[in-house]
């Protein structure tokens, strides 16, 4: 096969060159890519192909639907919160979530650190009810640096940790941070 190949009369420092044709499969990939590029460009930029904004909106809408089906929905289910508050298993789960997510700012015993003490009678946002705590945990408090956990915690985790926090009142841990906010009488 080698013998049939034509050697050109090129000689560069002893390097010679053969006059082989371009491999067919190689040309096919080149032309294929060019045709694909043209079709892609026409579909997305001249035709009706969806742009990034539409595709993002579609993807986010899917998450919304899944979220609604998954049970948490938009609003806070106070009955479910109450049920969790009276379920010791859920409270225990909530404690685990608290250690993972909340303890770095509120302290291991919720005594307050970067964030406020959660064991006293004083509340900065809301009245310390299950619904009020759930609102703060879900939406966060942007100005104060409390992140919104609604999109991060799964519904059961969120309800459990809210129920757990509610049980902490009066636990009176060591090194408790000074009270902040308004006192809420029982």
């Amino acid at each position, binding site marked *: 096969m*080698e013998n049939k190949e034509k*050697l*050109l009369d*090129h000689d*560069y*420092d*002893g*390097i*010679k*060159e*053969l*006059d*082989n*044709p*371009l*491999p067919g499969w*190689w*040309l096919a*990939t*080149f032309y294929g*890519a*060019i045709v*694909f*590029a043209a079709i*892609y*460009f026409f579909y*997305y*930029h001249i035709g009706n192909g969806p*742009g*990034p*904004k539409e*595709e*993002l909106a579609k*993807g*986010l809408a*899917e*998450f*919304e*639907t*899944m*979220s609604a*089906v*998954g*049970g*948490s929905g938009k609003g806070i289910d106070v009955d479910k919160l109450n049920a969790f508050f009276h379920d010791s298993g859920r409270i225990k789960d909530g404690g685990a979530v608290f250690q*993972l997510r909340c303890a*770095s*700012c509120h302290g291991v015993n919720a005594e307050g*650190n*970067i*964030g406020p003490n959660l064991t006293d009678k004083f509340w900065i946002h809301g009245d310390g009810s299950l619904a009020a705590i759930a609102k703060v945990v879900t939406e966060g408090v*942007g*100005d104060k*640096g409390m*992140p919104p956990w609604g*999109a*991060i*915690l*799964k*519904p059961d985790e969120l309800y459990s940790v809210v129920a757990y926090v509610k049980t902490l009142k009066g636990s009176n841990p060591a090194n408790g941070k000074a009270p902040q906010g308004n006192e809420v009488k029982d």
Partner: protein
Amino acid sequence: MTSEVKDIDIVQYDDDIVKKFAIATLIWGFVGMLVGIIVAIQLANWRFNFGLPWITFGRLRPLHTNAAIFAFAGNAIFAGIYHSSQRLLKTRLFSDALSNIHFWGWQLIIVSAALTLPFGFTVGKEYAELELPIKIAIAVIWVVFGVNFFGTIAKRREQHLYVAIWFYIATVITVAVLHIVNSVNIPVSILKSYPVYAGLQDGLVQWWYGHNAVAFFLTTPFLGLMYYYIPKAANRPVYSYRLSIVHFWSLVFIYIWAGPHHLLNTALPNWAQTLGMIFSLMLWAPSWGGMINGLLTLRGCWDKVRTDPILKFLAAAVTFYGMSTFEGPLLSIKSVNSLAHYTDWIIAHVHGGTLGWNGFMISGMLYYLVPRLWNTKLYSVKMANFHFWTGTLGIAIYMLSMWTAGITQGLMWRAVDASGHLVYPDFVETVMRIVPLYYVRAVGGTLYLVGYVVMMFNLFKTMANAPATQRSETVRAKPLTASFGEVAAEGGHRSIEGLPAIFTTLVVIAVLVASIISIVPTLMSPAYSDGMPAIRPYSALEIAGRDIYVREGCYLCHSQQIRTLPFDVLRYGPASTPEESMYDHPFQWGSKRIGPDLARVGKKYPDVWHYRHMMDPRTVTPNSIMPTYGWLEKSALDFDIIPKKLGVMKIVGVPYSDYQIQNGAVDAHHEAEQLAARLVEQGAPKGLEDKEIIALIAYLQALGQMSNKPAATTN
């Protein structure tokens, strides 16, 4: 050096300069890779940052990339180009003086990079970190190289230019254009400057540069080297001259367009993203044209490849080139990119190219060059074979671990459960999963370096065994006699090969046309006129903090760009808009998420959270792998330079009033005192109001808070 015997010249090549560049390659390669292993270990275990500013990851990583690219690969291509061009053009280099200015100038640039980057002097743009005076020196030395190279072509004794020379021409021209356009900065002080471009425009220029640095610094010169050293070492004719022509021109023209594939799914206009993607796909065949021509040249001598270490390295290098240039187009597909971008998959891809293609080409070339230049035999073939196998094993371990890490983390970032929630909402959880692979990667890199050190020993031994009297090679060659008309009459591609001025002009046209169409519309367009929401410029203190963010190389681990992807938006908030970085000189979109995106981190946490996080990230984020930044609460903030900074920002287009500029220091002090008081209230120590940490916290708390109009969720 040239004496005439009738019409035959006796030419003595300048091999001394090639020897110098070869030795520099050997030394800088070791330095660059050693720093690479240090940063790899730092990622596996944060304690290896030792709490020392100048060896912390964010400062060492640019040293690794700059040393590997510009010092190791740079010196290697100068050695190879100077060696092969003289022989392909049958002439001594144009000027011994220019050759030496080139050599010593380049080494000086490398040393100044090593003396500035660890101390935080950086522009903050990847592979273009070096500050303005060094950038200018690079431009000057590159021009010296260009004059020397084209001067050599001008006095050649070979009418036609061989394909290797075509690739060298493309390299010399394009690197100059890229470097100069991406370096238009206005200085604040001798070692601090701001780019004139901002936000997405800066991003587009940067990645046009960054991608084409890969193209014209790590690809075209190496293809030229391949075209010389493979046929020489194998003693075989090049497979196809026609393929050389087609793949050269298509590569040079198409490569330039592909830069925006580094910015897929971002705030970059979609048409520019699409161009980046489709040109990357079209680049596949031109790249493989080079691989095919290299590998098929070795037909009929694969038995030699098994025994000759030179051919072994060259053949493996070309194979790695083929792998990387297949993977590159794949990664440029928007949907694949949505998984791979910001992950270690990209790191695997890059190192397949650098360790496999560049590193092995350089090794093969050095095994070829050193015995020939020093007129002796290689000290040990066995050692060279050992180098080959440890190197190959090292690359395999490196790439497999980083592929696994990248794909694992990419899948974790996008995992959403049936209730529409992220399965791994904690970023650190996705990091913990891949930390073991960071150790594996460090092992792979170390193996590669072990092989490299064996090569250094082998080659230095070879040099030591060389005969005492060394003489550069001489050759007899006829001067050129053909007239312009005669060469032009040959017709077709053959005539432009004989007419370097025309050849070079065509390369310039190819590169400039592609560059102009792909970047100028975005640079000229009023990109931010879309409703022009009120974005406020950074405050005096925030600007100071931003410079600390740049200095510490935060952008190397944290992106500031939430992509238009549902799972990105779910994790970080509304997609980033072009306006949000319109005052960012330089842009800080980043290219890697070793830590989470920071585009909307402002106001997410209390001020004191940031204070504690910077002092020791693990107090607020258990298992974080971020280094500690204790020095920020000790070092005093330079308030006096702030007016100067604001003044330069005004020159590059940020709307500060003269009043704001004049009062920059006073305003910053005022802001700092307020923030420090808040911090004390929240439990931080007193006395932070004149420390650097204050400015950094002010900047971080401003991220994502610059727009007065809430960003639409579906933006």
